């Protein structure tokens, strides 16, 4: 790209209330981080509820995690999200290098992984519905005694699943929003809307996706891998 075209693109992308492209980039990034911190506090409330009830019923938490969570599917979803974080990071790098098509392809791959995550999550939700571990009128979970007979799970067991569904459900909502946002950014990126000089939307949407990954990094061991008290 010649110097004059570069300047023209930069002038077009620079909003009038910013002095320079750098200032615009730093401001949008900071704005996104402030939003992400509100999201951290939002999830923080749920993690605190989790802490309170886990300290109250540690045995129930371990039992539910060991016997009713599909840790293989959870691990697979962790792999998917970690890989998707890599493709997003690589897409941001690609646009910093001015490689528009590569950016779009990497973002589309990320969208596919996001959809894969949601697909696996819905299989898990369906399995919980079938085995009766969805709280409310669908609840008919039973616990096996050492002698092989069964008894209905006490109320505390529903607490684990209330928190499981609200935490993973809210996370899945964020994944859905992220998938839609990334798909739009991928399309615009393919059309050549972003350049080496102007790519804040790719960067901040990438930050959002990494945030979704961060939440899952904590949800995974707290829900799927409970061992001991």
């Amino acid at each position, binding site marked *: 790209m010649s110097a004059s075209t570069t300047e023209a693109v930069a002038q077009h992308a620079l909003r009038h209330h910013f002095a320079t492209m750098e200032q615009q980039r730093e401001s949008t990034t900071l704005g996104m981080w402030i939003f992400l911190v509100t999201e951290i506090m939002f999830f923080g409330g749920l993690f605190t509820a989790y802490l309170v009830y886990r300290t109250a019923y540690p045995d129930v938490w371990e039992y539910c995690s060991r016997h009713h969570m599909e840790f293989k599917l959870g691990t697979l979803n962790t792999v998917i999200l970690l890989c998707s974080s890599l493709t997003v990071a690589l897409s941001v790098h690609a646009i910093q290098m001015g490689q528009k098509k590569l950016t779009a392809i990497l973002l589309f791959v990320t969208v596919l992984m996001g959809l894969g995550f949601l697909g696996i999550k819905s299989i898990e939700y369906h399995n919980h519905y079938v085995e009766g571990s969805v709280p409310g009128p669908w609840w008919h979970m039973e616990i096996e005694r050492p002698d092989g007979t069964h008894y209905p799970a006490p109320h505390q067991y529903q607490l684990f699943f209330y928190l499981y569904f609200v935490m993973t459900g809210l996370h899945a909502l964020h994944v859905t929003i992220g998938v839609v946002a990334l798909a739009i950014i991928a399309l615009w990126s393919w059309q050549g809307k972003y350049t080496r000089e102007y790519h804040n939307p790719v960067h901040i949407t990438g930050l959002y996706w*990494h945030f979704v990954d961060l939440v899952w990094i904590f949800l995974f061991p707290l829900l799927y891998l409970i061992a001991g008290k």
Partner: protein
Amino acid sequence: MTEHISHVKHYWVVWIVLMGLMALTVVLSRVPMPGPLNTLIALAIAAAKATLVLLFFMHLKYESYVLSAVVFVAGLFWLLIFFGLTLTDYLTRATLGVPGH
């Protein structure tokens, strides 16, 4: 301040370490350990993974994002107050008792 551009190699290395830590946490969760050790190790590994994502994938390591890092650390600080003060109550009920009961 000009935008920091990382080397592609760094992203791949971070990803490999993240996958390694994930495998480690899955394996260690199947190893019986005394008391809360399993949980503490799982949380330490999760914190390490989160730190890698924050520093490298989200670029907080780089000087051009120092303000973003300040915002994040402020958020984290309030989150830890939230967790910490809540646990001072719930974790001490067994030893200190609940007033009025």
